[in-house]
C-alpha cells in the first residue's frame, strides 16, 4: 500500500506533514526543499509527481488509525513506538527504491514513455511488423520517437538495442530484470500490467509501481554511464546538469561573478527577495555552494554563538536570532541553517 511507503518518510521527531508530501510531489519552494534537506529526504523529490495532496492525507489517516503516527502538534506527524517498529519491519520486507534521486535532474516520467514506445517500435521493426497499435497516442512522444527512429534506423539497430538491454539487465536481480522485460510492450506482447506483475511476484500493486519507477531510474542512470548508444540519445535532452531550476541556476552563475545581491537583482531584473530565494534553492540542491562568500564572520559569529553546539537544525527558531542579533534577517538565518546541514552531511 501507498501508506506503507509514506510511513517510511516519518521519524521519531516531528516532521511537517505538508512539507514531506510536497517534497514527494516535487513542489520546489524553498521551504519544501529546506524541509527535504533537514529530513534528509531530497532523494524523494518529485518521486510521487502528480499524486494529489488528499491522497497523502488519506494515507496518513490510515497510519494514524493503525496507531503508527501521532500528531504532536497540528500539521506535524511523528512515529509512535509501534510505528517505529513497523517502519523497521517494512524497510526489510518492502521494496526500497535505490535510484530515485534521478527524479531530481532527469525528466524520468517522460523518458519512461519515450523508452516504452521506442522499444516497441524497435521490437515491431525487428519482426518487420508494419501495422501495430502504438503503446502511447501522445503526439509529443510519438513525434520524438519517430525522429529518433529515423536517425537510428539501420541494420545494426536491433542488435545494438538488445546488447544494451542485456548489459543493463544483468546488473539487476533476476526478479527486477524479469519485471522490466515483462512490462515492455512489443511484437505480439502487449506487456504485463502492474496488477498482473503484482500477482505473479507476490507483491502489492504499489510496490510494483515503486519497482518500475525505480527501474526507470536505474535504466536512466545506466544510460548516463553508457552515453554512446541509441537510447542514451533519446535520454540526453531530458537531463539537466543538476536539480536546480533554470532561473535559479542563472542567478547563481551571476552570483559567482558578483557576490553583491543588489547588483545581481539589477542585472537579472529580479526582486532582491527572488535573488535570495534562488540562492537558497541552489545552496540546498548542490553540494559545493560557496557559503563563505555570503556568510561573513560578522554574520556567522552571533549564529555560531546561538547554535554552535545544537545539531537539530530544524528545531532552531528565528525568534532566537531576532532577540540576539536583530540586524540579521531570515535569509541569513536560513542560509546558515543550510550550511550547517550540508557540512553535517
Amino acid at each position, binding site marked *: 500500500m501507498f501508506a506503507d511507503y509514506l510511513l517510511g518518510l516519518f521519524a521519531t521527531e516531528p516532521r511537517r506533514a505538508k512539507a514531506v508530501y510536497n517534497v514527494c510531489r516535487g513542489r520546489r519552494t524553498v521551504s519544501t526543499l529546506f524541509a527535504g534537506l533537514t529530513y534528509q529526504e531530497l532523494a524523494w523529490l518529485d518521486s510521487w509527481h502528480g499524486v494529489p495532496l488528499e491522497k497523502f492525507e488519506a494515507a496518513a489517516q490510515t497510519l494514524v488509525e493503525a496507531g503508527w503516527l501521532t500528531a504532536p502538534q497540528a500539521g506535524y506527524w511523528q512515529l509512535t513506538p509501534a510505528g517505529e517498529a513497523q517502519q523497521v519491519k517494512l524497510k526489510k520486507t518492502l521494496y526500497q527504491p535505490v535510484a530515485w534521486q534521478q527524479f531530481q535532474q532527469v525528466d524520468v516520467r517522460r523518458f519512461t514513455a519515450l523508452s*516504452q514506445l521506442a*522499444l516497441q517500435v*524497435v*521490437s515491431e521493426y*525487428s*519482426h518487420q511488423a*508494419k*501495422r*501495430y*497499435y*502504438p*503503446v*502511447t*497516442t*501522445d*503526439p*509529443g512522444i510519438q*513525434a520524438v520517437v519517430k525522429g529518433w527512429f529515423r536517425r537510428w534506423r539501420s541494420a545494426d539497430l*536491433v*542488435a545494438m*538495442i*538488445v546488447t544494451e*538491454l*542485456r548489459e543493463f*539487465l544483468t546488473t539487476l536481480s*533476476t526478479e527486477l*530484470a*524479469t519485471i*522490466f*522485460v*515483462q512490462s*515492455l*510492450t*512489443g*511484437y*505480439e*506482447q*502487449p*506487456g*504485463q*500490467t*502492474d*496488477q*498482473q506483475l503484482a*500477482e*505473479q511476484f507476490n507483491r502489492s500493486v504499489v510496490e510494483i509501481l515503486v519497482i518500475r519507477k525505480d527501474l526507470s531510474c536505474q535504466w536512466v542512470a545506466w544510460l548516463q554511464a553508457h552515453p554512446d548508444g541509441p537510447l542514451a540519445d533519446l535520454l540526453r535532452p531530458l537531463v539537466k546538469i543538476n536539480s536546480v531550476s533554470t532561473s535559479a541556476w542563472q542567478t547563481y552563475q551571476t552570483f559567482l561573478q558578483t557576490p553583491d545581491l543588489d547588483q545581481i537583482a539589477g542585472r537579472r531584473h529580479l526582486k532582491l527577495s527572488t535573488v535570495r530565494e534562488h540562492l537558497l534553492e541552489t545552496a540546498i540542491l548542490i553540494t559545493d555552494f560557496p557559503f563563505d562568500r555570503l556568510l561573513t564572520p560578522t554574520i556567522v559569529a552571533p549564529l555560531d554563538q546561538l547554535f554552535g553546539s545544537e545539531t537539530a537544525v530544524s528545531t532552531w527558531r528565528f525568534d532566537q536570532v531576532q532577540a540576539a542579533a536583530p540586524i540579521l534577517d531570515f535569509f541569513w538565518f536560513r542560509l546558515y541553517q543550510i550550511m550547517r546541514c550540508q557540512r553535517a552531511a
Partner: protein
Amino acid sequence: MQRDEIYQLLKQKYGFDEFRPGQYQVISDLLAGQDVLAVLPTGTGKSLIYQFAGTLLPGLVVVISPLISLMQDQVAHLNYQGEKQVAALTSQVDFQTRQLTLRQLPQLKFLFVSPEMLKQPAVLTAIQRVKLALLVVDEAHCISTWGPDFRPDYLGLGQLKQQLGSPLTLMLTATATAQVRQDIVQQLQVPQAQQVIYSMNRPNIYLAVANLSNEADKRERLRQLLTTAATPAIVYFSSKKQTELIAEWLRSTTNLRVAAYHAGLSAEDRFKIQQQYMTGQLDVICATSAFGMGLNKADVRLVIHYHLPTTLADYVQEIGRAGRDGQQSLAVLLYAPGDEQLVRNLNELTMASANQIQADYQRFQQQQPVPDELAAVLQFYWEHHYSVSQVVDIFDARQRQKQRELQQLLAYIQTADCRRAILMSHFGEATVPHREACCQLAGGAIPLAELGLTAGSVTTTPTTTSWKSLLDQLFLQKI
C-alpha cells in the same frame, strides 16, 4: 466521384471488396455534400466512413468524441491503419503538446476532440483557421442522453458548428430512437440531413436474462456462465470497485484469464489489457461500460451484464460488442430484485429540484464561482439565457424520461414474450418472429450446445519465461 472509383479506393487502401451495410450510402451522400445522420449498428465500421471521406475531401476531419479512452483508442486505431496525421486533444494532453498540436493543425488530417475542449477559445480559433473537410459527431446520441443534465456542452455543439462555418457534418450513432434522432438534428441545426438508418437488430446475438434471487446467486451464475459458455467474454459492471473485486474472485476461483478494466487505470495499463484481450491472452474482461467502445475485436462470444445498463439503448450498444464476426454469440443480463435501485441512484445524481435551480440562478447573477458539478451544468443554461422555469422543465422532463427508460428496461427483463421483439419495437422497428436461436423466453434454459457456444478446452496460466528468452522473443535478431 463515381461508384467504381470509390470501390477501387476501398480495395486499394483497405483491401476490401465490399462495404459493410450503410457505409457506401453514407460515404456517397457525404461526397455529394449532404449532411448525414447515420444510425448503424455497432460493428459496422463507422470509423471507416470518416476515414474514407477524409481521404477524398481536402482539409481536416474533426471528430467530436465523448470519452478520453475512446479517443485514444481511435487514434491508435488510425495509427494502426497507417494514418499518421492524427491527434487527440484531451484534458490528459499537457499544455505544451496541446500547443504543438494546434500549431501543426494545418498538417493534420484527423483531430479528435471533446465538446468541452472544442469550445475553448484557443482550440476553436485554431480550428477556424484551417479548412475543414468534415465535422463528425461520434456517439451522437450523447447530445440527447447526456446533454440536458450531465454534459451540457453537447447542447452547445450546434452553436460551435456555426462558429466553424457550418462544415459538412456527419452524425454517427449505433442506436437511436426516433426521439433521439429528432434531438440530434435539432440541436445540431441540420434539419435537412440525410438519415441513413439500419436495423439495430443483431440476429446472431442470442438474448438471455437470468433472474436470480440475490447477489450470491448472481456471482455463482456468473461463474457458471463463464466456465460453461464460449469466451472471449466481457462482463459489464456499474462500478469500478466491482470490476476489480469480481475479476480477482474469478481469477482465484477459475482457470480463466481475467482482468479488470475501468477509467481508473493508467493509459498504459488500459492499452495492455485491451491488447492482451485482442490477441487472445485474456478470456474475460470485467469492465465499466466505457470498455469496448473503440475496440475492434470481432470474436467476442459473450457479453454479460452483472448490473443493469442505464437504458435499453445502452444495452443494445454494449451487447453489440459481441459477434462482430457474424458468428453466433450470447448476451446475458443478470438481474436480482433491487438492482434497479442502482440505476435510480445514478439518475438521482443528475437530479435538481426547482429550489436548487432557483438558488443556482441567484449564484450566477451574483457572479459567484461554480461550486459543484450540478452548478457547472446549470451555468451553461444561464450563459445561454434560459429562464429558471425553462431549466426546471428541462430537468423534469429528463428525469421523467429516465424513469420511463428504466421501466422499459424492466419490461425487457420481465417479459414473458420474445425479448428481441421488445428491443425492436422500442426502436420503432418491425419485429421478426421468434425462433429457437432468438432469445431465452421466461423460465427457459440457454441452449448453449444448440447455439454452438459451449466452452472450449480449459486454458492454463502461462508459465513464467526467463527475461532472456522474453527479450529474444521481443527482438528478433537474424543470426
